[in-house]
């Protein structure tokens, strides 16, 4: 269904993905674990064809490689649901309209279906009480729920979730992960990108690990993903010397 073959992606000097090859089957559940700036979002953007690989091929279903036409890209995106890390909600439309717009754009459903579908999706993420609010009137977590509702409302064949629980407290996060799991069991392929090993653990599924743009399938969580250090005594001076933190960003 999704197949990367020796995909390399450069942004100018910066090597974001380095010779990545992997595949994902229909209806599979995959968790993409990687530290910040590892290249997770870049990988997802290659799937939606928001960006082109510098070399290698990306094949999605029957659409394979090369530059797709604008119409084909639009078609592809209508079969994919994406939860963006920065949500990308329309600030001038209510929560309901944001979700309903995705239903309308998909074109799969009759006009009379739009309202019930939208309401069901909002209910699934627990936002039905907020349907009239504008995104700017939501808490950050509520905005994320709205983004999730928009991604799942069409029950896409592929669901890409980029840190979908980043703004949620543990309990809500667990609920969202359960929802995504349910959608996968209904037949969708779900690819979840996250920096947090505990999300990976809770979500389950096959794990692939990105590290500085290189892929390590099924790898054990590395040192970078150790849990946070234990609670420090309140107001106590820090044990660690105030050395600047090691950057995670450079290194092409």
């Amino acid at each position, binding site marked *: 269904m999704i197949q990367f073959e020796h995909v390399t992606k450069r942004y100018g000097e910066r090597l974001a993905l380095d010779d990545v090859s992997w595949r994902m089957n229909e209806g599979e559940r995959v968790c993409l674990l990687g530290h910040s700036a590892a290249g997770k979002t870049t990988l997802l953007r290659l799937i939606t064809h928001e960006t082109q690989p510098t070399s290698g091929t990306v094949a999605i279903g029957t659409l394979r490689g090369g530059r797709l036409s604008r119409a084909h890209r639009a078609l592809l995106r*209508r079969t994919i649901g994406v939860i963006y890390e920065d949500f990308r909600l329309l600030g*001038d439309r209510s929560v309901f309209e944001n979700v309903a717009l995705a239903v309308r754009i998909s074109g799969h459903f009759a006009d009379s279906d739009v309202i019930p579908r939208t309401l069901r999706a909002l209910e699934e993420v627990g936002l039905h009480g907020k349907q009239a609010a504008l995104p700017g009137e939501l808490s950050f977590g509520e905005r994320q729920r709205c983004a999730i509702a928009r991604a799942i409302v069409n029950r896409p064949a592929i669901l890409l979730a980029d840190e979908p629980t980043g703004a949620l407290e543990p309990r809500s996060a667990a609920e969202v992960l359960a929802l995504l799991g349910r959608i996968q069991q209904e037949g969708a392929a779900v690819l979840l990108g996250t920096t947090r090993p505990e999300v990976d653990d809770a979500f389950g599924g096959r794990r692939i690990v990105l590290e500085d743009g290189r892929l390590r399938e099924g790898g054990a969580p590395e040192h970078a993903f150790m849990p946070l250090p234990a609670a420090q005594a309140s107001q106590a001076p820090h044990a660690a010397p105030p050395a600047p933190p090691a950057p995670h960003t450079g290194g092409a």
Partner: protein
Amino acid sequence: MHLFFWREAWRSFQAHRGLALTTVFSLAAALALAGVFLLVSWNAGQALHWIGDRREMIVYLNDDAGEAQVQALQAKIGELYGTSTFVSRAQAWEEFTTQVGDPEILKAVGTNPLPASLRVRLRPALQNFPAMSECAKQLEQFPEVEAVRFGGEWVQRLDALNAGARRAAVAVGLIVALAMVFVLHNTLRLAVLARRQQVEIMIKLGASDGFVATPFVFEALLETLAAAAVALLLVFGLQQALAQRLDGVTFLPLEWIAAFVGGALVLAWIASAAALGRILRTVGA
């Protein structure tokens, strides 16, 4: 599906009322200027036409031409050149008297030396210098005609003025039209730019170009229609004000109004579609 697009356009108009009103005002201003230009052109054209009406030719008659002969001549002239009025010798003297104005001079003249004449108002097609001199030549062939006079130089000058004015109108009109296209295009472009993010997100959701663009174009058309209405109202107000001071200033005829509104809508269509096309190309990676 059309209903959805209209609803979207209306929703956007309401949600961005400030933006939409700003757009309408800008467009109305530009269109009002174009309308003022049209009003001036229309009335100048009318005035020139009216001046042109005054161009006439004087056909002096032989003193021995009888009444029947003159009437036959008038019939022939009516057929070939235009309407004519007969001016008898007595009438000519009277006119001369008022023209000179100084009774001393007239006393010195004594008898009336003036011939009878026909004043010919030519058909519009003949009201230019080359046609008029040709007519004059032909008329002089008639036996009843002593001589033909028309303000040759004056007609030539009027022709030149007419041509000059028309060229100036075309030049100014071109600038006005271009300026309007620019304001229209740029205003709509700014309005679209202000909603660039929205376009970007819709494209990410898989919307086709048409789906994204149609409500914008509809909105632009609505705004232009509103702006054209405002502009016409302003121009109408101007005409009413002018008509009180300057006799004969009339409002644009219906066809001009229709052409004006239609032109504005077509321009708005093209401008907004072009602006969107550009944004869609740059945004929709």
